[in-house]
């Protein structure tokens, strides 16, 4: 799957549905589908909310390669430089209602992914996330 979406929340939610359909067609297991959805939601929402502080229009590219034994997600955006790996993990356990615990979504995304890479080039930010689904008919140990 390859999608280019504007930096708007409504397009993010449509992209999440597209991604889930792609994962379903590839027969990726349910747990991994939920993991991909979560990482994609957290990263895309974060980019839309914070990546374009000047309010300009931007483009986010989403590439999703899905197999039953490996899923690779690549996100590119033309927002301001932002390396999710450089963000301090939130102070946990903490009461999320008492204060705005920053970086909660990014912490979830990093915790759930099997691999997480960031690079910045002339086109903008590039994040590659890997997941390890459970292949069907895996022999029971």
């Amino acid at each position, binding site marked *: 799957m390859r999608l280019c979406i504007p930096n708007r929340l409504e397009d993010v939610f449509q992209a999440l549905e597209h991604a*889930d359909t792609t994962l379903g067609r590839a027969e990726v297991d349910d747990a991994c589908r939920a993991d991909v*959805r979560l990482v994609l939601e957290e990263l895309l929402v974060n980019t839309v909310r914070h990546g374009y502080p000047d309010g300009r229009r931007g483009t986010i590219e989403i590439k999703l390669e899905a197999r039953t034994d490996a899923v690779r997600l690549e996100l590119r955006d033309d927002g301001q430089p932002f390396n999710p790996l450089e963000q301090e993990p939130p102070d946990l356990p*903490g009461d999320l209602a008492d204060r705005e615990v920053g970086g909660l979504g990014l912490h*979830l995304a990093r915790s759930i992914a099997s691999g997480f890479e960031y690079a910045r080039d002339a086109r903008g930010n590039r994040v590659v996330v890997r997941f390890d689904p459970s292949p069907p008919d895996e022999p029971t140990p």
Partner: protein
Amino acid sequence: MTLIVRNESPTPERSTVWLEGSLDANSFSDFDETMRDITPLVDNGGTLVLDLSQLNYISSAGLRSLAQLRKQMHDRGGRTLLLNPQPQVKKVFDIVKAVPVKEVFASIAELDQYLDHIQRSVTGQG
């Protein structure tokens, strides 16, 4: 995926809310709005039970909604108990460590037992 919220309030002391679907960046504001109508119906010091057996997905936006709900109930001397979270929701709770283990129950029987225990402690029985 959308979110469906149902509520039954057999007593003002205890109200149960069933969540079905996804509690995420797309649905949390509707959820917050619905809960603004429901929580005042629970007495101060009462118990709000969130039945999560049909909630199959939560993200950080949903976590914040649940945290705010817990805080509102706590500020009124009440409590929020979570029932039967499913694998994805449980996984997110575990990573964030934001929900005390003693407020999450696998079954209604376990939850009833906990509330009975509290009631007995309050009335000095048992």
